[in-house]
């Protein structure tokens, strides 16, 4: 039941906001809908904790511990982002970068986007999963080009074409999956249901599935932002409005990776070797290293953190590729931590850029002098994302790196190199932004920093203490992914 609320609320929210337009309180309504979605997600989560995995809507939806925590995460970050975007967008309007119908578009597509992601997470049908992913892309394309600047249009175009092609390849993969499945499950609706496929995965035709996995990996991997398919990501993050960057890198990448993982489970079952795992490890390492070196060159703060998202996604993919209980656990943990931390960073960065009136880091100086909260938010967020304890990102990185050293020592030099370079680059660039002297003005509206510190607080807590039920989730999910 909750599932329909979960999907219905944001969908109707999207439609409503499209009609309501930019009258008074549109942002508040947006936040309200997100909040209701969060409630629904909480109820659903509660149900799952109570009753364990379940099918809904005669098998069309399947919720287990793997996707339910992503659902919860998505709803949460969506809500906080809505909170953040309220003052942020107002200030943007103040600065004359937006007008009313664009705000209408923004609010409507925001809700649609959330709905699409939740659908992608909860559906049991690999085909619908694909459809939802595509929908999520389409919903965000116009958000990326919201400012209608040449740069934003270019970014949106690249985003659309590259992800479109990627997603098309993913569809081909899905077709191949179906092609393999129908011989066992018979043609018709059930042949693409993940639960059914999971049941018979051992009998699926290996050659077809390996082929299918290549297409799925390249397809969804493009959306995850794995190098060398990542090219759209920095542009889209840098040119879109900050709330969009936050949800893109905090949520969309996770969902895409979720799709990859769902297919990996099947492929592993069918092939019985760790071909899929090795591919993912390769992609992961490449992404981590490449992103680390690209971070070094950045001058635009949002672009830099976009690359850092690529780096972390690479790390997560690498961990999933390693497989095993600890690595999967770590990867799931890292997913959570990265979403929370990175969105928090984007919130702080958003206000910082509004203060400075530029996204160039040379223009942003001495934040803690004029706006200590933004300054400390950015500083702590950066420290957290760089994997410094006691923040939770460290916990997952700790597990990932130690496991890597234990199981695949050959990979650790690359990790060491990349982490070092990334640390040097990011911290070296953020430090002068936060510290030092400045003459930046104050903001017209009170910035919404509650989300920042709420996220960071969560990350801090999870670094020192992971509640047992949460840990139990992660364990189940890790086990489900072949731990």
């Amino acid at each position, binding site marked *: 039941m909750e599932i329909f609320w979960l999907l219905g609320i944001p969908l109707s929210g999207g439609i409503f906001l499209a009609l309501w337009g930019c009258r008074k309180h549109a942002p508040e309504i947006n936040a309200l809908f997100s909040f209701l979605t969060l409630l629904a997600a909480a109820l659903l989560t509660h149900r799952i904790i109570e009753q364990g995995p379940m099918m809904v809507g005669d098998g069309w939806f399947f919720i287990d511990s793997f996707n339910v925590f992503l659902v919860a995460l998505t709803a949460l970050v969506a809500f906080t982002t809505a909170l953040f975007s309220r003052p942020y967008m107002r200030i943007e309007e103040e600065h004359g970068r937006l007008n009313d119908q664009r705000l209408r578009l923004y609010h409507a597509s925001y809700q649609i986007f959330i709905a699409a992601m939740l659908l992608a997470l909860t559906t049991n049908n690999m085909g619908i999963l694909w459809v939802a992913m595509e929908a999520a892309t389409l919903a965000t394309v116009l958000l990326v080009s919201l400012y209608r600047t040449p740069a934003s249009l270019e970014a949106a175009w690249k985003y659309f074409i590259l992800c479109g092609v990627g997603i098309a390849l993913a569809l081909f993969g899905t077709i191949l999956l179906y092609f393999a499945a129908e011989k066992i499950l018979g043609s018709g609706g059930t042949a693409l249901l993940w639960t059914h496929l999971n049941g018979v995965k051992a009998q699926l035709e290996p050659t077809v599935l390996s082929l299918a996995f290549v297409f799925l990996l390249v397809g969804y991997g493009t959306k995850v932002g794995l190098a*060398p398919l990542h090219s759209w990501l920095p542009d889209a993050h840098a040119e879109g409005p900050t709330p969009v960057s936050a949800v893109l890198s905090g949520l969309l990448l996770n969902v895409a990776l979720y799709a990859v993982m769902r297919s990996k489970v099947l492929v592993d079952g069918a092939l019985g070797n760790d071909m899929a795992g090795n591919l993912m490890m390769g992609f992961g390492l490449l992404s981590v290293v490449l992103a680390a070196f690209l971070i070094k060159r950045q001058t635009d703060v949002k672009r830099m953190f976009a690359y850092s998202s690529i780096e972390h996604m690479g790390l997560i993919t690498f961990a999933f590729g390693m497989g095993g209980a600890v690595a999967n656990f770590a990867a799931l943990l890292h997913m959570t931590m990265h979403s929370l931390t990175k969105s928090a960073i984007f919130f702080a960065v958003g206000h910082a850029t509004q203060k400075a009136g530029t996204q160039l880091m040379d223009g942003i100086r001495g934040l803690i002098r004029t706006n200590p909260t933004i300054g400390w938010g950015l500083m702590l967020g950066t420290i957290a994302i760089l994997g*410094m304890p006691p923040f939770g990102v460290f916990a997952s990185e700790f597990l990932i*790196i130690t496991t890597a050293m234990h199981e695949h020592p050959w990979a650790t030099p690359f990790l060491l190199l990349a982490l070092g370079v990334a640390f040097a680059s990011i911290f070296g660039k953020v430090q002068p932004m936060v510290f030092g002297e400045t003459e930046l003005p104050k903001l017209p509206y009170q910035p919404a920093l509650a989300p920042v510190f709420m996220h960071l607080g969560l990350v801090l807590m999870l670094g020192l203490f992971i509640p047992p039920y949460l840990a139990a989730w992660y364990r189940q999910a890790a086990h489900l992914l072949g731990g």
Partner: protein
Amino acid sequence: MMETLPLLPPDPVQWAWGVVLFWLALGFTALLLQGSPRLLSRLVFPLGALGALAIAGVGAAGLTLPISSIVLPIGLPDLPFHLRLDALSGFFMLLLGGAAFGITVYASGYFRSMAAGPLALLALWYHLFLAGMVMVLLADDAYAFMVAWEVMALSSYFLVTTDHKIPEIRSAGFLYLLIAHVGAVSLLLTFGVLQGGHGDYTFDTMRLAEMTPFWASVVYLLALFGFGAKAGLVPMHVWLPEAHPAAPSPVSALMSGVMLKTAIYGLLRVTFDLLNIQIGWWGTLALALGLITALYGVIFAAVQSDMKRLLAWSSIENIGVIIAAFGLTLIFYTDGKGALAALTLTALLYHALNHAFFKGLLFVGTGSVLHATGVRHMGHLGGLMRFMPWTAWLTLIGALAIAGLPPLNGFVSEWLLLQAFLLTPGLTQPYLNTVIPVAAATVALAAALAAYVMVKFFGVVFLGQPRDPALHEAHEAGWAERLGMLWLAAGCVLLGLFPAQVIDWLTPVVRLLVNQTLVNDGNWLMLAPVSAERASYAPLIFLVVVVGVLLLTFLWVRRVYHGRVRRSDPWDCGYPEQDARMQDSAEGFGQPIRQIFEVFMKVERETPDPFDRNPRYRGASLDKLWFILYEPIARVTDWLSQQAGRLQHGRIQWYLIYSFATLIFLLIFTTR
């Protein structure tokens, strides 16, 4: 938490945890006390000092009592924080508490003039720093250790950048944190190898893990790199001369006196406790690195002209000596010479303890000078002994101690170490017989140079005539500062006078690590590590004799001859225009050393030509390693990132080609 922590915990480890919590609470209450700076400096810091004292007590208890441990309800789900207090942690906690008490008492006076807001933050980081260090010593699983380790690094980074408006300080802090982080990652890898698999990271399982020599060596090298980066082992030392001067003096004192020792602790913990095989060449490596570090550090200390930078370099030297002792311990231990290993290990621990006290003392001394004059460059100081006698005399004790002069504490550890060299004949690896004399010579040379450095430091700063008229207004340090310095100085003296007792304390630690003990053949006032006719040293008698002779002479001279004294100008050699600027400058005093050891340095000189209207001379001796090691690394990374940037050049067609190529490649790769 209450059930694991009754109100009056019986276990020392629980006391320690309690103090950690107390410090954390103190730090965060400091944030609330932003309103009243008086309360901050007059209440928070003294309380923190009490905590340090308690930690020292706990450490002393930990030395004697059996191993105690608790498991906290925080941490990773499968891996709650394990805390454990054995003799090793106990000793280092004693060190920490002892030094930190004096330093914190000093700090309570030192920071009184600071603005409330920054002071509150500083108090928070300060106590987090202390707590982090204690947790490093207590941690009994990899995760807790790493968390504590990084908390320590992070809080000290924020302390270093307290005065973040100055760009140099920012870059110093950045360099510090960067190297600390790289070291930390290599420690992660260390534990990655050590772990039992399936995410079991407790030290207990690591102790049981059976290692092949290869993997054990990997662990050792990674640990040496990781901990060396924190300790300032050459060539990872570059952050140290930058960060220590940047930090406020009590912080420099903590970092140099205590934090560096946590790295030594970690090295000992991993090498002797967690690893259950040791290999001979490890020791040789450590010995070589340590000696190089010691020599390198003291040479550069001799040519510095910034007093805190000088002290930082001298810390590098002392760390080098300690690491050399560590190497010797390994050599002897793997060679089956347990007694010798015990001797060198004792020397190591003793020197660590000494360094905590005298380096802390010297740093806070420079702090008072800084407060009184606002000058760090020795070229503008001088003659302060007359304006701040307390600081001067107490600092003198520290200087003499670090110069390794009897009967102070620096001499004892040096003496023990040198004794170890004399006992080496009969090692199984013959090549060591050629290494040992050279090593001994290097240690002796470093010690002698340390004396040079200290004469320079004390002489230029406190003696002579003020090189700057403003110095005549220099005021003596406040009572809290004096108290802190007094405590540290007393530590230097007592540790020097009662070595026999100290060695008794060290016995459990030594037994724990090399399961052998150092028998003191002498009695309570005489130290005779091996046997009384082999070698002995009784500082107390020594002191009594010296003082006795001194008094006798004094009284005799007074008695027999008149004590008339006439004051006049110093003799100017018939050249009346002598003034204070004609004294040796700091650079001048270091000049011979620079001349002799110029190979290690990149010297930048700016000499005036004869016709300059206002001629000025500037000379800087820079660390050559920076230019031959670090800058190339930076260049290579730059180049690589440039190449990476090429991939991202805007044309969507190219991006499509990437996807296309990836797809084709994978298709071929998977279907062949």
